[in-house]
């Protein structure tokens, strides 16, 4: 029951936020935080609720199944294991942070908070749904609130960018829909249940095509290089909260999809397409990193770094080895923290200074030491300094790559080196240097410092004491790998 609350609560909370906005005095902000807090409690209840009796695997922590139209094979099936639980927790925390960080948004603030809650609800849906129809439904639903967030509260020519974001991801979603419907049609009796598909034994050739369909949607959302054109624009034009949700939630759904379904539904297809996934990931890390070095807009730079980090996740996921998958899981969560923090800081700077152009920034060290300290922490996370969760993720992926193919490991290491170039480049232009007249700002207020501290503890805690995260991910990775055992 708690699982459905994870989705239903933010969904209807969003609608309620629209109404509560009329009460004024930030009512809808406290209301949203309350809704998300209750959702967090629901998550904990679901997590500690003991393994469900009828769960097909050992790794499922909670499962809800409600057949509301058996004739049509429609059912409401949610299941949570280690990884999806962690991702849901991250998305709720980031939801709270994006509410806290946009305390001064006045334009249609009711709808603003509704969009935040709906994004959290939709992404929770994606992380939990094990019924492919509902998965596809939430997959598409996610785009709508983000589209609204970018097109209403964004900067610059936000409508065009929001449209580009929507078209890119909606079209990519078609691949997913086609595959889901094909599978439902060829199933012995019509159903969308992922567990049934897992045992159904789809012929290998069909598996390859279905996996292509699935990965079309996941790679665009990931984003992997040829399909990434929407991310830099979307991030530059999105409001701070939008960027946090985009980086923290939406990107993770792509990676989560690649983690869950290829292994479970298309083992043969996975063995055929894995090399291409590896190659794409390798190219992505280098391409994203090199492009990040040349950017002049801070948010665009961080967007390209996200492409580089998520391509490392892609490499880990298509490695098919225990270390690589584990590393991918850790990197997903670490990137959620570090990317959101960087967007948060850049957004806060933009609110004060009015520009994100790196050529005009600089000298934050003198004028805002606390800003500088926060930037330094997440600067070290961006270049995967040991002691941060990013390093743990990337080191595990590289270990996995050494087992798979040494050349790929070398490429991942090169990307580590290039990450220094863009990270120091970002830091140099924002923190160091003579404080330009645009940069005389007041330091971080407590409403901005609290989320930064939360994200910093997240990054450093999982970096220093990784077993907190690894224990959670272990069963999920074992289950995902079981069908993939290399022949």
């Amino acid at each position, binding site marked *: 029951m708690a699982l459905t609350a994870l989705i239903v609560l933010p969904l209807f909370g969003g609608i309620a936020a629209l109404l509560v906005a009329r009460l004024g005095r930030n009512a809808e902000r406290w209301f949203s935080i309350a809704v998300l807090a209750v959702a967090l409690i629901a998550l904990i209840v679901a997590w500690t609720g003991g393994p469900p009796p009828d769960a097909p695997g050992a790794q499922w922590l909670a499962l809800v199944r409600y057949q509301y139209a058996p004739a049509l094979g429609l059912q409401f099936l949610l299941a949570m294991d280690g990884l999806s639980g962690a991702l849901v927790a991250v998305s709720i925390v980031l939801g709270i942070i994006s509410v806290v960080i946009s305390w001064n948004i006045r334009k249609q603030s009711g709808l603003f908070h509704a969009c935040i809650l709906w994004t959290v609800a939709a992404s929770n849906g994606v992380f939990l749904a094990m019924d492919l129809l509902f998965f596809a439904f939430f997959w598409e639903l996610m785009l709508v609130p983000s589209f609204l967030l970018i097109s209403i509260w964004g900067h610059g020519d936000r409508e065009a960018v929001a449209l580009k974001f929507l078209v890119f991801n909606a079209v990519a979603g078609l691949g997913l829909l086609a595959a889901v419907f094909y599978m439902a049609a060829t199933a012995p009796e019509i159903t969308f249940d992922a567990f049934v598909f897992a045992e159904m034994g789809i012929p290998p050739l069909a598996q390859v095509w279905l996996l292509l369909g699935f990965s079309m949607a996941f790679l665009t959302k990931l984003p992997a290089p040829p399909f990434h054109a929407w991310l830099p624009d979307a991030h530059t034009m999105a409001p701070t909260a939008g960027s946090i949700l985009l980086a923290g939630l939406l990107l993770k759904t792509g990676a989560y999809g690649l983690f869950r379904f290829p292994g479970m539904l298309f083992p043969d297809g996975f063995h055929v397409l894995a090399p291409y996934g590896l190659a794409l990931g390798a190219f992505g890390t280098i391409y994203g990193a090199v492009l990040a070095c040349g950017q002049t807009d801070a948010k665009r730079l961080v967007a390209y770094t996200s492409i580089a980090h998520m391509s490392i996740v892609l490499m880990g996921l298509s490695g098919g080895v225990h270390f690589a998958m584990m590393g991918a899981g850790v990197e997903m969560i670490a990137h959620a923290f570090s990317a959101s923090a960087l967007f948060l800081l850049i957004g806060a700077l933009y609110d004060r200074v009015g520009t994100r152009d790196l050529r005009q920034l600089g000298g934050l060290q003198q004028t805002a030491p606390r800003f500088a300290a926060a930037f330094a922490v997440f600067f070290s996370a961006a270049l995967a300094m040991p002691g941060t969760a990013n390093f743990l993720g990337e080191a595990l992926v590289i270990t996995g790559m050494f*087992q798979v193919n040494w050349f790929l490991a070398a490429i991942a290491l090169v990307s580590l080196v290039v990450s220094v170039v863009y990270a120091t480049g970002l830091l140099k232009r924002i923190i160091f240097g003579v404080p330009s007249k645009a940069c005389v700002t007041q330091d971080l207020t407590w409403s901005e410092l609290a989320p930064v501290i939360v994200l910093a503890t997240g990054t450093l805690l999982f970096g220093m004491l990784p077993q907190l995260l690894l224990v959670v991910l272990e069963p999920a990775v074992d289950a995902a790998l079981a069908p993939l055992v290399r022949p």
Partner: protein
Amino acid sequence: MSPFFALLLVPMPAMGAFLLLGLGPAEFNRRAIQTIALAGATLPAVVMLPLGAYCLMGTCDGIQPIFDLEVGPAVVALALKLDPLSALVGVTVTIIGACVIGYSIDYMAKSEIADLRRYFALMNLFLASMLCMVLAGDSIIFFLGWELMGLCSFFLIAYHVTSARAIAAGRKAFVITRVADAFLLAALLLLFLEAGSVRLDDLIPAGIATDDVRRGLIAALLLAGAMGKSAQLPFHTWLPSAMAGPTPVSALLHSATMVAAGAYLLARLAPLMETVPLVMAVTATVGAATALFGATAAVFQLDVKRLLAYSSISQIGFMLLAIGLGQPEVAIAHFVVHAIFKSLLFLSAGDITQIARGTTDIAAMRGALRARPVAYLAFVAGAASLAGIPFVTGGWFSKEAILASAWLAGPFGIVLWGVALSAAVLTGAYAFRPVLVGLIPVKGARMTFGGVFTNLPILLLAAGTFAIAPLVTPMVEFLDATVPHPPLAVELVGAVAPFVGLALAFAMTFMPRISRRVAQARRMRSGIRIDGVYQIVFVQPFVALVRWLTGQRGSIADPVGTLPVMGAQWLVGAIVRPLAHDPLDRAWAGFASATVRAWGVARHVQSGRVRDYALAIAVGVALLLLLGWGTTWR
């Protein structure tokens, strides 16, 4: 509570100071910052000395596990380790760290609160990370310390945030050391895959047990990692420019401890390295070559800090030479001695040049004897130990041991011995140049003495250079090895080398003709422009690629991203637009216009003329009749 629990306490105070000063939200005044920093710096020494003493008495080969967890098939067990090597190096690092941070309290007195706080936070973080690396019992904590040092060096080199040169130097240092770290990470991960555990005790036997190709590769990667961090020949360009940081930073990081970490790494993994003779030979040659290159470049420097930087490069070259010849213990001994006299040189040079208008070139040290006697005399002691004045200074014993091990290592060894000897001569030359300049009297120089925090560390270190002399051989024995002794003649030659160097130095400073030529040797001064070569070979192509990919060169920005979008738009143009006007609709429209034209024609039938109508009637009647006749009548 095993005695090794204290190991955990060693890095703790420094880390605590960092957290308090660096990330702590509380406000501190100057006095508070200095006390916290000093506490963070001295407490590790206080904890480390008893541990060192314990190690001296009995066997000290203990592990203090921190936690362990299963990651799939492997077990990751983090731990701190105490053994003669880590104890000795740990003690040295803590002592020198305390001295340098103590010294910098006075040295940095003028900078304002925010910068001071950042400086001491970073210095303490550095000390903590260095101790983590030294005391690490497993590869993860080792690499954690190793990388954190790189981060601190970046921030400390770029301490003067407003000077673009310092920032560029910091970035260059960080990138090059990061390249080396990549090699080291690869090696450590490969070992981890072999051993299935991260403990150094498991890694080394597992590394030895693997097949030759893999072991050779691991050893080569380890060597590359060490060379990068210790600024050996191909990777050395970052160290001279790293002198842009404040002098205490150069003293602690870029001479004594961090830069020598490479040597410590190779010493720690020596059993594994020795099983790959080729890599050992390469290490030795690289060491010797770097020693010679460093020494020659140092001779021509005009700036005392750059001179000391090149000197560090060459001294660590000596250490690598020793390790390459299978004598890691001698290298570590030289590490300890070098750490002491090099930090002493930096601190005293810093003190002298600070009062002389702040520039750090050698000319500014003119008349230092009278202006700053304590610092000058300490500098002389350090220089003597660097040059290796026999029997009196520690430098002589450790360098002599290295030359001896080179001589005894067979025919190839003798070649290396020759190279090392010439390097030693040049070392003598560049060591005494600033000393002689300091002797030149300057009129009206008032004798001044620094504060207690300046002089105490300098005196301590000076005493150390002389006190360590008799301890070099026991140190090597402490590390379970013996000091090699070449034939007497060879030792004598080694003893004469520093004096030849002194003569050279005398010629260079006082003979105008030679000193002018030294001044003009601009090519040599910039390290045969290797830095410029790197700039052309690596940096410019990379910048060009970045510019091209981000479209600043008029090309399409982010080509891989925009090409699919342009393709899609072309597709829309090619397929959708022609169909935009629905062909069926167009067909109906055509039909409609045809009827309009037909109407135009039909209109003329109604001409309004009675005769035409009559004609029509006639035709109609005729046709009907014919029809009727054709069908019914007949």
